[in-house]
């Protein structure tokens, strides 16, 4: 089963849930898809044993064949190609590697070259088969790195995907195909606002979902009221506790020090599993 952990708002506790749930389950695969700032390994401390480069294909113009007709540039929705009277410019950071320029080119002047955009890394720790991705500094497209990470999913076992925050392409790429999505929020007006955006995304993708309220006790009751009205299950509440915050601040997943949470996370997983089956 694939469970993804997402949130509209950043900093609500996705990685907290992903790491504590993983350590409670033991034998599980964890994939940190927040490739712009992966931080799950701060908590796992997995020794990285394998690395792979992630590349994308970028057009390269054969200037012997090109007659500067401009069709490639007109076609490109991302303005990654510029055609001026005697030159064609390629802007690799804007290219989405769709291949459309090659199709529309009447001169067959488009070749492809590979460009590295990031890497994925692998390590094993405490029974957790851990992967994360790292987008190169200056690159703007996280999706190719997330796609490369998702190829590592072992469908036979249980998989936890730690998604990036927000509701844009990298989030959709991360959570698409999951059997269940946990949306983590904080009980504040900002938390609720962004939770609603995240709910719209998971509904659009037809992924069954539930909500975890983190830092319960701060803010107001509007997240709970909203979930009740919308009949969205509140899977768990994690209190706003100094002890948990302290452990977090020194990189210790709190299930390691507070064993009662070990059971709560195991129970959470069992309930999700039953819910998905029925």
């Amino acid at each position, binding site marked *: 089963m694939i469970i993804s952990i997402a949130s509209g708002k950043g900093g609500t506790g996705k990685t907290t849930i992903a790491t504590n749930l993983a350590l409670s389950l033991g034998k599980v695969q964890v994939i940190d898809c927040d490739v712009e700032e992966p931080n799950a390994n701060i908590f796992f401390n997995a020794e990285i044993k394998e690395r792979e480069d992630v590349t994308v294909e970028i057009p390269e113009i054969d200037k012997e064949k090109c007659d500067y007709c401009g069709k490639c540039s007109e076609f490109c929705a991302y*303005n990654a190609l*510029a055609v001026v009277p005697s030159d064609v*410019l390629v802007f690799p950071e*804007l290219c989405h590697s769709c291949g459309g320029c090659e199709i529309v080119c009447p001169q067959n002047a488009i070749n492809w070259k590979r460009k590295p955009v990031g890497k994925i890394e692998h390590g094993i720790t405490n029974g957790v088969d851990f992967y994360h991705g790292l987008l190169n500094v200056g690159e703007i497209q996280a999706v190719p790195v997330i796609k490369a990470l998702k190829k590592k999913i072992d469908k036979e076992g249980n998989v936890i995907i730690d998604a990036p925050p927000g509701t844009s392409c990298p989030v959709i790429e991360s959570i698409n195909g999951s059997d269940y999505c946990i949306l983590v929020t904080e009980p504040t007006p900002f938390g609720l606002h962004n939770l609603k955006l995240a709910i719209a995304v998971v509904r659009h993708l037809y992924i069954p979902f539930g909500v975890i309220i983190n830092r319960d006790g701060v803010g107001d009751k509007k997240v709970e009221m909203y979930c009740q009205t919308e009949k969205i299950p509140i899977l768990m509440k994690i209190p706003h506790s100094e002890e948990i915050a302290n452990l977090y601040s020194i990189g210790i997943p709190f299930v390691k020090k507070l064993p009662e949470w070990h059971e709560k996370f195991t129970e959470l997983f069992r309930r999700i599993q039953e819910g998905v089956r029925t």
Partner: protein
Amino acid sequence: MKIGVSSTGENLDANVDQRFGRCKYFLIVDTESMEFEVLSNENAMASGGAGIQAAQTIAKTGAEVVVTGNVGPNAFQTLSAAGMKIFTGASGTIKESIEKYKKGELKETEAPSVGSHSGMRR
């Protein structure tokens, strides 16, 4: 000679738009007759590559010179590839800017005057 100017409006009394790629209009002005053509910048709201599109649009008009407030790296590269001269730091009305250009009071730029996506911050 024809000059492409980034403009906030559709005539010579409009102000120079400080943004090149995300300006509202381009005025293509004939420096001899002061006759002009107005092009609406359809890529002003593009998520990316607005400067690249703008540069191609101007290059197609046959203008040899661009007068604007600022130009970013991608637009600069595209305009340079098209063999165009770029004058930044223009302000005030289009008419005034063209006068300044004619008197040699505007400086030709050899490098982008702002970073990527500067036109999106307004």
